[in-house]
């Protein structure tokens, strides 16, 4: 399943995912990609190992504990289990056998698979579904009909788009299931869905998209894209 992935996540994103410094929407995209890509999963593991090594070697960053810290912790242990961090909670679908089109982390946000997505039309056959994440960045699923183009747009911030179904072509490059396209403020692009199949993507961005055409620009605040 992972042999066909050609566009991967970069070191900066994987390192930030490991360090825990990404906004939730980006964490979601990374976790979704790692669910499909063994190479990036191994890299992410390596960055966790690097985090552990930094934790052990960073002698400047050691903070003195309260005098009774050990006793207090043993009392905490005796009192029963500590509420697990929300981030420790495994993806809902892990034990439900082979997943559908949406990898586990996305299924958790959608509350199911493709049929459970609440699509809203945004014109020209394109549909989107905004996923609930923290406000620093937003995540949405996009449905682009076979052969159709996304509106030409540039970015104020960073945008990452991962293909879940079908494929799109942008600037001569083909992006299929699992592939991630990374765009920043310097890139104006017009992804076009492959003609053979409707395309479904996960797109995350840390700034509102700016459209070149007048009408999408006016519509932007209402569409939240």
């Amino acid at each position, binding site marked *: 399943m992972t042999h066909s992935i050609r566009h991967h996540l970069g070191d900066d994103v994987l390192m930030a995912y490991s360090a825990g410094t990404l906004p939730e929407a980006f964490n979601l995209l990374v976790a979704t990609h790692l*669910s499909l890509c063994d190479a990036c999963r191994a*890299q992410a593991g390596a960055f966790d190992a690097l985090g552990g090594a*930094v934790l052990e070697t960073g002698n400047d*960053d050691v903070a003195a*504990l309260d005098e009774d810290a050990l006793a207090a912790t043993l009392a905490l242990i005796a009192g029963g289990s500590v509420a697990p961090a929300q981030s420790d909670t495994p993806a809902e679908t892990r034990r439900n056998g082979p997943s559908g089109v949406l990898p586990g982390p996305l299924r958790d946000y959608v509350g199911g698979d493709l049929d459970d997505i609440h699509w809203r039309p945004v014109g020209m056959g394109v549909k989107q579904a905004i996923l609930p994440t923290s406000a620093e960045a937003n995540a949405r699923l996009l449905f682009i009909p076979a052969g159709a183009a996304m509106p030409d747009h540039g970015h104020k911030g960073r945008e990452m788009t991962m293909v879940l179904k079908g494929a799109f072509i942008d600037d001569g490059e083909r992006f299929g299931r699992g592939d991630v396209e990374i765009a920043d403020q310097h890139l104006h692009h017009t992804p076009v869905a492959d003609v053979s199949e409707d395309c479904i993507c996960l797109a995350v961005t840390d700034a509102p998209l700016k459209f070149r055409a007048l009408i999408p620009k006016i519509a932007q605040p209402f569409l939240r894209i």
Partner: protein
Amino acid sequence: MLVGTEPEIQAHPALRSGQALRASPKVLGPENVNEMQGDKRQEWVGHIVRIRDNQDQVAFGELFRHFAPRVKGFLMKSGADATLAEECAQEVMATLWHKAHMFDPARASVATWIFTIARNRKIDVLRKQRRPEPEELTWGPEAEPDQEDVLALQQESENLRRAIADLPDAQRKLINRAYFGDLSHSEIAAETGLPLGTIKSRIRLALDRLRHEMK
């Protein structure tokens, strides 16, 4: 690739059952952990085993004295005040006690495991974000942590620690900041006054060098 660990902490099937574990000579137990003395990091694996099997408070105390101040420092660099960082560090170490049975020494060093627990606690408490984990891989029937795998992973972790110590100062500091400090590369640029390109290239150089060392 630096080291081939998995990003997730998960119960190794063989570690779920204490009995099966002790019946197999290949598997890590307190007795063969002692053979690994001389390397502190491998010793920490033995500490986790003692906590898991015997609720050993002495072992816990030693781990605590080494790691809890580092976890607290990590949390303070990430923006927690001293009181909150102390509280979270204690919770992280208590989590280590309760989840000792989930630790898989063939997949992570003790430092890495503690780092991931601390990181997740930080995201919950300080950043109020969620950080979804990838879908779990389904493992085959072969399940015991092989002693050779454990030694190899722990040795690689030690090599990585040394490779970081050998990095040029400027590179090591930026790697540190990327993990301790909760800053994006552009925020590091704003804070240090270094151009973003310089920061990115230094981090890239550091990673190249670590990868070379870990080959």
